[in-house]
């Protein structure tokens, strides 16, 4: 009875997985082709001949790619840590401490995040220039944090709202202060929320382009998306280099996602109540 509708569901899932993965699969395949293979007509679907030459070339010809990836990693990690710290505290205060007008503030925070980042660029650039924050990790971390903090606050606030308030009340009765409750009760119980939000913020920051392009002008400070975008030369569009570099830039994100995704699914509040 239930088999047929489930078969349809599986088909739909497989289809959507294929559709969303196709660009990435094509990217990986391209990175494994020779230049001739890339431009061959009719197009090659599987690399023929299969080659790792692109990967060897990219590390010998443009070793700065690893620097770009490292820069991205530092900025994304910094942004995630700062956004989770401030977003966590703000979200907790807004959702749990009975603040007046908390709802209005939440809407205000959301409204601020609706400014298109490009419109902020000129003033941001000038300000960062004056503050000496151009081409610094601190500068881009601050900029990214500002960009993604509203999202973090909203995500975490709605996660906190799902926690049973009695646990925090019991902690108050036991003698914990607000900060202690936040640190040793709320954060452990909201771990899946923090991991999920952190992952998304990390990926946002990793992929962010306009601010990274404008605020990091020195080659040594560029992040991966910006660095890779500058590969096309004046006369050629090196598909094999770009696809290879992109695959390399994806790997750290994939690893981090793989590590943390298991934790998102955990039902950590199980056992608190009935």
């Amino acid at each position, binding site marked *: 009875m239930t088999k047929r509708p489930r078969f349809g569901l599986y088909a739909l899932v497989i289809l959507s997985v294929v559709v969303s993965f196709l660009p990435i699969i094509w990217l990986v395949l391209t990175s494994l082709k020779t230049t001739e293979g890339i431009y061959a007509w009719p197009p090659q679907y599987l690399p023929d001949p299969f080659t790792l030459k692109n990967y060897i070339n990219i590390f010998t010809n443009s070793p700065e790619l690893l620097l770009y990836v490292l820069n991205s990693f530092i900025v994304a990690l910094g942004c995630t840590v700062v956004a989770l710290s401030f977003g966590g505290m703000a979200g907790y205060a807004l959702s749990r401490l009975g603040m007046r007008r908390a709802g209005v503030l939440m809407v205000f925070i959301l409204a601020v995040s609706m400014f298109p980042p490009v419109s902020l660029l000129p003033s941001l650039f000038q300000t960062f220039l004056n503050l000496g924050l151009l081409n610094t990790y601190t500068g881009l971390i601050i900029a990214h944090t500002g960009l993604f903090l509203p999202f973090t606050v909203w995500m975490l606030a709605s996660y906190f709202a799902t926690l*049973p308030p*009695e*646990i925090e*009340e*019991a*902690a*108050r*009765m*036991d*003698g*914990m202060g607000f900060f202690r409750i936040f640190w040793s*009760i709320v954060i*452990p*119980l909201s771990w899946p929320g923090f991991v999920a939000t952190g992952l998304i913020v990390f990926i946002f920051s990793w992929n962010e382009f306009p601010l990274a392009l404008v605020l990091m002008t020195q080659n040594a400070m560029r992040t991966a998306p910006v660095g890779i975008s500058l590969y096309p030369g004046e006369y050629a569009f090196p598909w094999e280099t770009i696809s290879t570099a992109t695959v390399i830039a994806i790997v750290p994100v994939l690893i981090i996602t793989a590590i943390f995704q298991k934790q998102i699914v955990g039902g*950590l*509040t*199980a*056992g*608190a*109540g*009935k």
Partner: protein
Amino acid sequence: MTEVKLDRIGKKYGAVEAVQQFDLTIREGEFLVLLGPSGCGKSTTLRMIAGLESITSGDLTIGGARMNDVDPKDRGVAMVFQNYALYPHKSVFDNMAMALKLQKVPTAEIEERVGRTAELLGLTDYLQRKPAALSGGQRQRVAIGRAIVRTPKVFLFDEPLSNLDAKLRVKMRMELQELHDRLGATSVYVTHDQVEAMTLADRIVIMNGGVVAQVGTPREVYDHPADEFVAGFIGSPAMNFLDLARDDTGRWVSDCGNLALPALPADTGSRSRVRLGVRPEHIEVLPEAPGPAPLTYPARVLLAELLGADALLSLGIGETRLLVRVGGADHPVQGAHLAIRLNPAQLHVFDIDTGRALPRSAAEVPPR
């Protein structure tokens, strides 16, 4: 002495008065139950004693000290929550030890006290487990243990048994009773379950719409309900109510005319209408009408429900319907004709407008 005194305590949420003028002294070692339907303000009152809810008006004193603005942890109270509210990421031991750790009690003493409490509650084998690995009853024991370990002056219970299934609830209720007998600590217990209230309480406070309807021992609230609300709330199945009007001859007659009482055991004053209350277990069932006799009326069984030990009969006396509790063995069946007899000592009379019980008359109609 840990007397808890609530002096005209009130709680307002905006314009809504959740609790009004709550005035009560809870005696040392007393087990006080706050009983009432949901939204009656009983939980709010408890939470004001705990310090989880601010007090809008009035004074709260515990052991003689004013507590209105004192932090929950410094009030000397411990609370057991309805959904246990254990720390799910901490072991049973850590759950119970938390308050002591925060009070900087020496580790050896913490271990000793938690160990002793765990033994008292039969939790010794579970101390290293997480709450998720415990059954509902065990979790509630941990929650109680967490309160006991602190040796508080006052225990607060917020519907601690309502998440348990019926069987476990009865068991835990008895455990709570034994525990209170052993510890003798002042306890305030919120419930909407009248059986819990009747069995556990030294005194019951029945609340309705943010106001105290009656304070009394279980016996008093059952035998002498102060008003119609209490009368209907205490007792299961609920008390029968019927309106009576005084006729020209001074008799009290039901609206349908089939029930007439020569006199009522209460000071009815100049009222021409009153509401009569009689509990299902206080109506005597006779096999057949024995001819005209005082306070005896013929009736027909409209519905008979066997509960096991007891049976509930829905009786029709003319248009009037009365619920009667009889023994379960050989109970009258549907359609049977029989007679009922009322006992004047077990009749309650209420003012129709205010719902207040009318005082029993000095010249009470003598019981049969």
